[in-house]
């Protein structure tokens, strides 16, 4: 029909223009290339699940989660990779994290290259790397094979060929400085300002102090204080600052003060003192501490030779100075690893035998939620935000 004042041909165009103009007021196309970023300082309720992807470990993952978030998908903040049983250390003084990992040039074969990869906490993107001697220890996830000392200026990597040593990396200049042999000893427990201690097969502790260039200043061996055959000390203590609380296979606790030049090794005491049932510590990461210095321990009953990696059905809470049991937390499912988030109201997060993460209020022991089905396979070790 003819509309006075309009040419028929231009009606559709006119209508289209009118429509377009009104739509444009409500719709802005999504820009290309939007990428989320995380805060430079992670909230205290965040944890990083170290997933070695045991069935295809070249594709290891570190998954960042908010353990306080009830939203199945909202709690998932991001992830970054770690190749072939990688280990993780998290800086506190800067928004950086370190992953030590192994690559083969043809995936499953070819030339081996070990690197320390630098990750930015905000972008979760790699921002640098240092190539290391290809001898880092290839083991199940364990925090003490990669540690930071000297106010986070030096990164220390535990090597095993099977001869053991420690590679030293300058983290600000991103430079490999050298290697320190630690024959017969293993793992890295930061000691003093710029040193580390290792546990030795003969039951002693070796302590090495470095100079600013990563060269050895001094090496000292302690008196033997345990028998690796009769009652081995776990090489995975609960750390609180420079206090290292080592559980033993038979269920004792040996606290070692690593704040000075030489370790101060306290006498052992029995964790299950007075409690019946043959309770012993066990798991992949069985011992952790909260910000207040309380020690949490995964415990299983009926302990015997060979049960030191069994899942724990309870977490026991200890005051290590008073040498007393403060609380027993019954777990809804047995767990193989625990972690405590920092701060005054810590969460106790436990990797359970279904390989999901149970979150408990550490004070009351109440189970709050389970973090499940977040793309994980074998989240064997957990790191609280720092």
């Amino acid at each position, binding site marked *: 029909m003819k509309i006075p004042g309009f040419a028929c041909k231009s009606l559709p165009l006119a209508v289209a223009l009118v429509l377009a103009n009104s739509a444009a007021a409500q719709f802005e196309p999504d820009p290309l290339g939007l990428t989320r970023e995380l805060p430079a300082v992670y909230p205290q309720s965040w944890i990083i699940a170290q997933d070695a992807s045991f069935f295809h470990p070249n594709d290891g993952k570190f998954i960042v989660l908010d353990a306080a978030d009830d939203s199945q998908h909202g709690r998932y903040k991001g992830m970054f990779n770690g190749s072939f049983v990688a280990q993780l250390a998290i800086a506190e003084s800067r928004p950086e994290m370190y992953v030590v990992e192994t690559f083969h040039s043809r995936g499953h074969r070819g030339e081996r290259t070990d690197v320390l990869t630098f990750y930015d906490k905000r972008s979760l993107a790699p921002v640098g790397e240092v190539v290391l001697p290809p001898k880092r220890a290839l083991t199940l996830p364990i925090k003490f094979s990669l540690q930071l000392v000297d106010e986070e200026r030096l990164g220390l990597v535990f090597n095993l*060929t*099977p*001869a053991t040593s420690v590679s030293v990396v300058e983290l600000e200049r991103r430079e490999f400085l050298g290697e320190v*042999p630690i*024959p*017969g*000893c293993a793992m890295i427990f930061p000691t003093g300002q710029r040193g580390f201690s290792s546990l*030795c*097969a*003969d039951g002693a502790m070796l302590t090495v102090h470095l100079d600013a260039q990563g060269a050895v200043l001094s*090496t000292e*061996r302690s008196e033997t204080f345990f028998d*690796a*055959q009769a009652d081995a000390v776990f090489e995975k203590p609960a750390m609180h600052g420079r206090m290292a609380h080592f559980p033993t296979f038979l269920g004792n606790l040996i606290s070692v003060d690593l704040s000075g030049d030489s370790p101060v090794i306290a006498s052992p005491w029995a964790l299950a003192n007075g409690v019946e049932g043959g309770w012993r510590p066990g798991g992949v990461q069985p011992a952790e501490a909260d910000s207040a210095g309380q020690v949490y321990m995964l415990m299983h009953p009926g302990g015997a030779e060979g049960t030191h990696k069994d899942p724990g059905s309870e977490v026991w809470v200890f005051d290590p100075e008073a040498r007393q049991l403060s609380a027993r937390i019954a777990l809804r499912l047995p767990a193989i690893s625990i972690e405590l988030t920092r701060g005054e109201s810590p969460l106790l997060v436990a990797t359970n035998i279904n390989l999901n993460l149970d979150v408990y209020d550490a004070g009351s022991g109440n189970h709050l939620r389970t973090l499940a089905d977040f793309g994980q396979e074998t989240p064997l070790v957990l790191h609280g935000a720092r």
Partner: protein
Amino acid sequence: MRGLPAAILLLCAGVSLHAGADEQRARVNYMLNCQGCHLPDGDGTADRIPRLKNFVGYFLHSEDGRAFLINVSGVASSPLPDSELAELVNWTLLNFSKPQLPVPFQPYTAEEVAELRKNPELDPESRRKRILAELQKTAPQLAIPPVAE
């Protein structure tokens, strides 16, 4: 070892030890404490684990070398008591490296081992190289092959 009847595993290879030594016990202790790295024939691996076969006997040609064999952490930090450790080291020398030993061969005693193992070597690779370099100079008649890097 694969495929051998169990009985053969128990046979002695006729290695002569000093009085009181137990060949079978030494052999088992070698399996449990050394073989995992130094391998059943004492071959080691070229760049990582020192070779014992036709080699370890050279160390007894110097005092430092003799001490080194007990100072080295794999020996010093062994769970074995001193007497069994001495027996094991003596068996290892005779079983894997008899041609390289000095004559007469002076076996380690439990007392010697007890003393030496108190000082585990902190940098075994460097010391090993030093000892062998010294022996190559002072005892060229041994014709010690160059150490693999």
